[in-house]
């Protein structure tokens, strides 16, 4: 028998380990929960302000602003027209308000991921040791089932918008960091040498050479980050984030097929709008690489 069953720790020991860790974490939550919550208060205020702005402004203005922003970024009337039609359809099928909440949420999450992710990516690109430390953490963040890290987040912050943002950012920030790091590391060594030869400081090299040349890769990171934020809205709705995820969750629980499909399609529509607009914008920034000497 002894070779059939794995010699695991006894039930009592395992229970003790769990209880100790759980109690420890609860202790931590009680001690620091409020401080952490206070630290993230500005994020909450910004998210609520943006959500209110999108919902309480007349829909026609919001529609015009979004379509204009998409056109300004992409300079492509097809993408702008697609955006217009998609938003009108969303409005007609009664999903306008939820869509606005989701857009506000994704915007805040993406901005947070960019603000945190780009500096971390830059730091990582400058030190091989830091890269060796951060890479497994990013692997963990991307593969750990999101429900698992929802537990401590909810324990500290409770239900609501801020834990939602944290959960989404944990899931969406890895590609931002990875691609910033990769983009900077791939910058042509010859060009960097030239920058050195002219006596550039580290900051001048970063700002005038490394970041501009890494921009296409960084833009791909931002694009991935937006897509992954949208993918997380349903999971985030489980901890009380309102928006398009909530009706989907409701549809799962009650087997409302049509409700699920409609809201799912609305998420897809927003994803495509964000994706095409951000990619077209990224491409436009790279106009120097388009015309090749024949």
């Amino acid at each position, binding site marked *: 028998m002894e070779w059939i069953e794995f010699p695991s720790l006894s039930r009592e020991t395992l229970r003790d380990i769990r209880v100790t860790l759980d109690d420890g974490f609860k202790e931590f939550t009680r001690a620091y929960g409020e401080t952490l919550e206070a630290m993230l208060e500005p994020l909450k205020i910004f998210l609520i302000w943006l959500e209110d702005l999108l919902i309480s402004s007349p829909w026609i203005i919001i529609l015009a602003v979004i379509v204009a922003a998409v056109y300004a970024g992409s300079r492509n009337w097809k993408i702008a027209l697609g955006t217009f039609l998609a938003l009108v359809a969303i409005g007609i099928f009664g999903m306008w308000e939820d869509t606005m909440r989701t857009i506000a949420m994704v915007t805040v999450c993406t901005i947070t991921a960019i603000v945190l992710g780009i500096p971390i990516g830059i730091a990582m690109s400058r030190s091989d040791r830091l890269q060796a430390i951060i890479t497994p953490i990013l692997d963990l963040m991307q593969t750990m089932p999101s429900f698992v890290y929802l537990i401590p987040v909810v324990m500290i912050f409770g239900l609501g918008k801020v834990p939602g943002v944290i959960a989404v950012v944990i899931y969406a920030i890895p590609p931002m960091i990875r691609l910033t790091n990769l983009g900077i590391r791939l910058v*042509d060594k*010859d*060009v960097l*040498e*030239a*920058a*050195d*030869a*002219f*006596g*550039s*400081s580290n900051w*001048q090299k970063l700002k*005038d*050479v490394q970041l*501009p*040349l890494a*921009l296409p890769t960084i833009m791909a990171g931002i694009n991935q980050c937006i897509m992954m934020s949208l993918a997380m809205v349903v999971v985030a709705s489980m901890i009380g984030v309102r928006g398009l995820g909530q009706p989907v969750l409701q549809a799962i629980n009650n087997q409302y097929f049509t409700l699920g499909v409609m809201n799912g399609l609305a998420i897809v529509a927003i994803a495509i709008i964000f994706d095409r607009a951000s990619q077209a914008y990224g491409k436009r920034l*790279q106009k*120097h*690489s388009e*015309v*090749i*000497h024949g």
Partner: protein
Amino acid sequence: MASDGIEIRNLYKIFGPKGEDYVDLVKGGMSKAALNEQHGHVLGLNDINIFMPGGKITVVMGLSGSGKSTLIRHINRLIDPTAGEVIYQGNDVCKMSDAELQDFRRHKTAMVFQKFALLPHRTVLKNTVYGLEVQGVDKDEAEQRARKWITRVGLEGFEDHYPNQLSGGMQQRVGLARALTNDADILLMDEAFSALDPLIRMDMQTVLLDIQEELEKTIVFITHDLDEALRLGDHIAILRDGAVIQQGSGQDIVLNPADAYITDFVKDVNRGRVIEVDTIMTKKEPPKDALIISSGAMLEDAAKKLSEAGAVNAKIVDGTGKLLGSITIQDTISAMVTPATH
């Protein structure tokens, strides 16, 4: 504008994690192959001593792997030496602090690269102002100075083009304009014209010589092409396996090659373009009707003048018209075709 010379003294570079430990072995005569075999370190430069005169073009020549690109990177310390000194205006570049080095690179040197190394996301104008931008020069002034050099290298009208809209030759003109706009005393050119096709290369050499006549910068030019070295170099140093095997004027090297390796190198050289009339002239009194040729002229030009005039004799005079010696067309032609023994 007079520029100062650069003196390289006892410079060694050993690539590998513990380069310093092996300097003494190399000083004791260990060869590049032995160092690599016994200690796994690569000897990059071996006891380099070169004086690069101010306001002149010094060419460092060698085949690939000879250490010439490593050497030029020691002058602005893109590579740190293992031992030795690089003296400019009394200061050792190798001992400068980071801040001093940054200042030295900004104000005293400019560099042109084999693969151009332009900033692909910037236009020609914005590439050209890069050095001044790094120095913190006001934008309008920087662009004004850049435009002058863009015109000088023949790129007027291309200011707003991106590098990949230009041909290789034009891209290297941008590289040259970027370096010249910096207005530094030292111009480092690392195989600057090697990536260009022969006609464009000749063209760029002419541009460089024209500009040098006016500016008299201290230019260090790296090449693997002997014809280019002889055309451009006031002073030529030949490198092999990280060591200087001969240095001198182009004429010295062609006339007195130091070893079989260099003899082999120079045997196909057009001597008529390298040897000066002064080298072959004799003290023999020229006839009254002799042609006048000025000192420093190349044999090829002298032969051309003599044969065009149908003359046999020519007298060599210096700038003030003073008689220095004489040549005959036979002497001239035989010096062009056979190794001269004067």
